[in-house]
């Protein structure tokens, strides 16, 4: 049934991604691929992996953006990992004609049943965030499962029962928990750091939150910042006699 659950899910499991400290090392994307290529929607097929035009299924991708303050000209680079946001009002679920796409009532995770998916790709058109992937070899849609086969896996130690992207992040830029519970650790983190949702105007009510980069500290005034080397330097100030003579000859 691809209508959304009538009751709001008991839990809203999701990720919180800290844009302040992500270093774009790609470890989360690689470990995601590693875990999920033998997980719930396995495999994460790669097409032509060693030739030109490589293409493949990825649930997690890291973009890098630059934000330039128009007044001061100061710029900041922000590394931006993006995976499924497990929206509360998930359009990928309601457009699905077969019932393959569904949102779980118990924890709000959005999943695809690959056994009945017809591969019409409409869910990928409906998703604003690019969370849907088409597996060309299997002919079905795949997506981030929030490592549903890992977070409930009792053969793993409790500390490992988090999504692969979270357990592997070397800087702790990714957090996992119940965003439906206002008292959970992760909800308090969002509260404290003023976490935000992506494209709220699309009306999808994403569960995942992003933490903004912290303001820059100890910013030096312009006159104290190191001088910029111009690419073309006309001055010979401070150069030795020989250098000045060579400059004179070459400039003639």
């Amino acid at each position, binding site marked *: 049934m691809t209508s959304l659950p009538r009751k709001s899910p008991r839990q809203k499991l999701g990720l919180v991604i800290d844009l302040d400290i992500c270093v774009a090392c790609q470890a989360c994307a690689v470990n995601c691929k590693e875990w999920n290529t033998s997980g719930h929607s396995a495999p994460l097929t790669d097409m032509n992996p060693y030739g030109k035009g490589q293409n493949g299924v990825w649930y997690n991708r890291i973009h890098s*953006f630059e934000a330039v303050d128009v007044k001061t000209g100061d710029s900041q680079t922000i590394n931006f990992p993006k995976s499924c946001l497990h929206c509360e009002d998930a359009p990928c679920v*309601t457009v699905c004609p*077969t019932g393959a796409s569904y949102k779980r009532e118990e924890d709000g995770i959005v999943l695809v049943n690959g056994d009945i998916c017809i591969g019409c790709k409409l869910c990928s058109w409906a998703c604003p965030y690019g969370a849907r992937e088409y597996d060309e070899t299997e002919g079905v849609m795949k997506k981030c499962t929030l490592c549903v086969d890992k977070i409930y896996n009792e053969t793993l130690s409790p500390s490992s029962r988090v999504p692969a992207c979270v357990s592997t992040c070397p800087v702790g830029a990714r957090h996992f928990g119940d965003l439906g519970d206002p008292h959970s650790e992760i909800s308090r983190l969002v509260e404290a750091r003023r976490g935000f949702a992506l494209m709220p105007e699309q009306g999808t009510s994403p569960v995942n939150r992003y933490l903004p980069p912290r303001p820059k500290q100890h910013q030096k005034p312009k006159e104290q910042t190191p001088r910029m080397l111009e690419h073309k330097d006309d001055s010979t100030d401070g150069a030795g006699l020989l250098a000045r003579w060579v400059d004179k000859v070459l400039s003639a």
Partner: protein
Amino acid sequence: MHPAKSVIFFTTGSGAGYGMLVWLAILALMGYQPADSAYGLVAFGLAFGLVAGGLVSSTFHLGHPERAWRAMSQWRSSWLSREGVAAIATFVPTGLYALSWIFLNENHTFSAPVGLLGAFLSLATVYCTSMIYGSLKTIPAWHTGWTQVSYLVFALMTGAVLLWFVCVIFALPEAITLARLSLFLLVLGLIVKVMYWRSIDEAPATSTIESATGLGKLGKVSLVEAPHSEDNYLLKEMGFRIARKHANKLRVIALLLGFVVPFALIVLALYGLPQLQTPIAILAVVAGICGIVTERWLFFAEAKHVVTLYYGESRV
């Protein structure tokens, strides 16, 4: 958006077929269609051929065409599912009406309710098709009322022109009625298309790179590094770019071939050279097909998806 050939053929072909089914029933009830077996066989054959061909072609882009029947199940939430249900349901009354027309030579008394129901369901199916696109908030160029209006008007327009063509082939006097109806619908279609283009050109951005990243407070945002060195699925499916380069030329081609040329040729067949109306009708249909396929190709290729904001687009 990537303009898949199967989907272009599906939307244009099934649209024209449903348009024919609508006019066959409505004009017959008004007494403008002969209850002739041979004519009925060709007209309904063409209409059902286009509808069924379109539906079959739409399954070609599926990863699992053999599971297509499953798409009937989610009519409560999915317009694609509703479209499938409506398409199958339409075959029942339109099929019965065609049988009555061809085998009983009856098209406007006891078969009238079935004919009307078929016409209504045909329009409902076209509306569902348009809503598959019109309901997607992620593609602002489709998420406008003009999408539904243009799908309905173009179905009626192409259906009328094709039915005129069949009438001309059978040298029926009813060809004059259909020619006039086609002229009216071609003007209406042209107005609708121009209004659609105006509305998408003037629409303010619904999402921006700032809202997509939430980084607008820090300043002007731009992409410095994409996640991959090669195109991924998202860019292949939703990052189609070739159209926008030639958009204006293609728009002129679509308008000329899809609307202006068929209009001029129908006028010529009606008032100028009625003795040459068969070759003129063939030309008009060929031009119309090229025009409407270009129009539909542009409908897909010109539409920007908000996911491109994560790949360098700044506003959609």
